[in-house]
């Protein structure tokens, strides 16, 4: 009778002395399996909510960036306080036709929608660049008065994500907000402090000859193309310089900015 009982092997296993090798292995395996299930279950089930939270946070930061730019609050109120969101094709700087903000994540999960960067082009240390990017436009009548460009690059300790706001002339920086970084607290991490970010508004990116001249200075800014450096965080400062130069250059938003200047947007 006992031999037919389906629970029998289970009982026999549990009845083994705790110190036997089989039981030790079995308990170790069972505990890890159950815990693995628990952890992966929680992660998978809760991920959508967490992603939504992060998106809301990024949105809030972008809004506070716009509100912090002098003179932007009245314009925002005029246009209903909302920005138009556009997904652009970085290759030619035009609005992407197949990809919308809702399907952007999906599109970027396809490796074919990324472009590998040569060492020479890859100022920001990214390795590869997405072909699509979601940008925000603020219009005054027909003219674009402000664009918000998400940028990213390799910092000292990891990736830095930021949003750069450019005025309608596509040359003057209207503001900058760092949305994610993992720089050294107290040194490089000061890039997210308003005190430093307040340096950006009014800084110009290109000289009269059209060449990119923006940089984070060593020490105090000495020209209209520079912002103050952060003492003790040379690598982080350089990373910001390179990141902005890359994204304003031909591999980044260069085509888009050209299109806006031609008033094709």
């Amino acid at each position: 009778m006992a031999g037919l009982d389906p629970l029998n092997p289970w009982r026999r296993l549990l009845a083994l002395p705790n110190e036997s090798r089989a039981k030790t292995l079995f308990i170790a395996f069972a505990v890890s399996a159950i815990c693995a299930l628990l952890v992966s279950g929680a992660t998978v089930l809760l991920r959508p909510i967490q992603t939504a939270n992060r998106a809301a946070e990024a949105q809030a930061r972008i809004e506070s960036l716009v509100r912090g730019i002098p003179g932007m609050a009245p314009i925002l109120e005029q246009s209903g306080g909302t920005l138009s969101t556009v997904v652009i094709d970085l290759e030619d700087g035009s609005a992407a036709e197949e990809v919308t903000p809702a399907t952007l994540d999906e599109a970027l999960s396809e490796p074919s929608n990324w472009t590998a960067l040569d060492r020479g082009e890859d100022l920001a240390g990214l390795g590869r660049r997405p072909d699509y990017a979601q940008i925000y436009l603020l219009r005054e009548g027909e003219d674009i008065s402000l664009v918000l460009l998400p940028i990213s690059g390799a910092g000292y300790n990891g990736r830095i994500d930021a949003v750069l706001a450019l005025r309608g002339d596509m040359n003057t920086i209207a503001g900058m907000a760092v949305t994610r970084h993992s720089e050294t607290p107290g040194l490089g991490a000061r890039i997210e402090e308003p005190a430093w970010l307040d340096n950006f508004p009014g800084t110009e990116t290109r000289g009269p000859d059209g060449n990119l001249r923006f940089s984070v200075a060593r020490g105090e800014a000495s020209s209209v193309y520079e912002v103050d450096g952060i003492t003790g965080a040379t690598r982080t400062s350089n990373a910001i310089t390179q990141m902005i130069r890359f994204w304003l250059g031909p591999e980044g938003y260069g085509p888009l900015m050209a299109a806006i200047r031609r008033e094709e947007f």
Partner: protein
Amino acid sequence: MTTRTPLLHILTDPLLRQNPVTLQILGICSALAVTTSLATAITMCVSLTVVVTLAAGIISTIRRHIPDSIRLIVQIVIIASLVIVIDQVLQAWFAEISRTLSIFVALITTNCLVLGRTESFARHNAPLPAMTDAFGNGLGYSLILVVIGGLRELFGQGQLLGRQVLPLAETGGWFTPLSLMLLAPSAFFLLGGLVWAIRSIRPEQAEVPEHMPPKAEPAE
């Protein structure tokens, strides 16, 4: 262990008489780090209490089947998994608070309080008393955190749970915030003061000095 301690006693014992923070000085790393405001302290308390209670329940249920040779790792795996689940839940529904708590939720895993309870109590007792004991210890920990967190927020910012209680001098009131209260050392001072207060009321908690101060003796 052998005598049946009433559940109520198991529950209330760790609140003051056997408080894990002030008597056993366990889990003070997090107690110091997350008490700058009452809200973070309360979130941390709830998370820790949930983790320690569930861990005690699970470990006590399988206590007869945990081989001695791997018992610590089995306990830590169970605790760590519970902590990850709690952390994910916080990130999903309490994103703001979870950012302020940052690493400290994950560090509940290494909080000696949790492993201490599962190792010393849950492993030898039935699930109900084990969970009661863990819950009581969680409450004892919470009590201290809430007291310290409340004091720090009140004197550091003049607020309680983000609401202005003491009118600030800046805005025309009389209270000047003590910035020291927002820094880590103040937590040490408060905890030290609390331990001293409890031990003067209950002298039986004071430890026998392990070392006597060396007397000036001539060198041999």
